[in-house]
């Protein structure tokens, strides 16, 4: 009879991705490019929030956008109208982006003439949270119609994000969405989270969100806005 052997491996399954993400972060720091990984469920308003953010910051930073979707280029077309550099990434059914795919996207976008790159991740609150993309900071959008219980239902994404945008506050009167409850639940998951209630449609709150993003870009790139 053949003998069984047991070898202790103790190797992290994310080790490879985490290493590539760290390498990418180092490269971005060196090239003075801030990468924001923006996550949310489908329909939370990533693209609309992004167009408002771009309008607010495009005179100060050279901006690039990577739109990740399973198919189509509808988002990239909308972003391209703002005049910033845009590419559409097709994940071909994949539910998230990893560090490798992000790096490929950045190489295709070309970041030598960009100060701030925004990655609009695939609309999903589960899978993107598991994979470090190599971004400088992670942010997520939760919209009012989704309900204030989401930090309880999808814990991981709230723990990996630095900022939480609560979008569509213009429709608060029509939903049983409790702004104080969502803050309480989100802080429970992540006491350091920065929370920004906004309406991408009316522009309410966008300035405060952009102030935070601006300070992060300046910190990372080590320069003052133009």
């Amino acid at each position, binding site marked *: 009879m*053949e*003998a*069984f*052997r*047991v*070898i*202790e*491996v*103790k*190797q*992290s*399954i*994310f080790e*490879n*991705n985490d290493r590539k993400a760290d390498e990418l972060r180092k490269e971005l720091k060196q090239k003075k490019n801030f990468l924001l990984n923006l996550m949310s469920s489908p329909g939370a308003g990533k693209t609309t929030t992004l167009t408002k953010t771009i309008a607010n910051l495009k005179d100060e930073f050279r901006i690039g956008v990577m739109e990740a979707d399973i198919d189509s280029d509808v988002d990239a077309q909308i972003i391209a109208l703002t005049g910033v550099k845009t590419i559409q990434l097709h994940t071909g059914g*994949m*539910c*998230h982006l*990893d560090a490798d795919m992000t790096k490929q996207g950045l190489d295709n976008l070309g970041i030598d003439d960009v100060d701030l790159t925004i990655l609009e991740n695939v609309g*999903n609150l*589960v*899978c993107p*949270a*598991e*994979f470090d993309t190599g971004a400088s900071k992670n942010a997520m959008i939760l919209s009012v119609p989704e309900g204030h219980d989401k930090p*309880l239902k*999808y*814990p*991981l994404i709230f*723990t990996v994000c630095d900022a939480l945008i609560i979008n569509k506050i213009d429709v608060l009167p029509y939903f049983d969405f409790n702004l104080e409850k969502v803050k309480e639940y989100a*802080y*429970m*998951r*992540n*006491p*350091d989270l920065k929370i920004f209630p906004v309406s991408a449609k009316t522009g309410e709150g966008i300035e405060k969100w952009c102030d935070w993003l601006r300070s992060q870009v300046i910190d990372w790139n080590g320069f003052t806005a133009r």
Partner: protein
Amino acid sequence: MHEMAIMETVVDIVVEQAKLADAKKVTGVKLRIGELRDIIDSLMEKCFCFMARNTVADEARLEIEKVPFVIKCNQCSCECHEHISNYASMICKNCKSSDIRMISGNEFFIEEIELI
């Protein structure tokens, strides 16, 4: 949904380790996964079977050991154990401080591999 992508990495590592150990066959793989990870065990097993086909790990048994979510408070030294379904909280239940450190719950490891 991302179980397949994770399993691809698991099988890659297992195949590489088996090669290094000069093994004929992998008969078992043990994973250690923290409760904070959004993973469906039964789906992990199906993905493992699928990804391991035609490799040295074909038909190997997959074992998943769950690691509980535990935080320790830096202020009052209280250790909080709270299962994910009871809302894993990053705030100390005893003194309500957010100055905590996570002891476990985020693991995602290949613990050991059984080979012939």
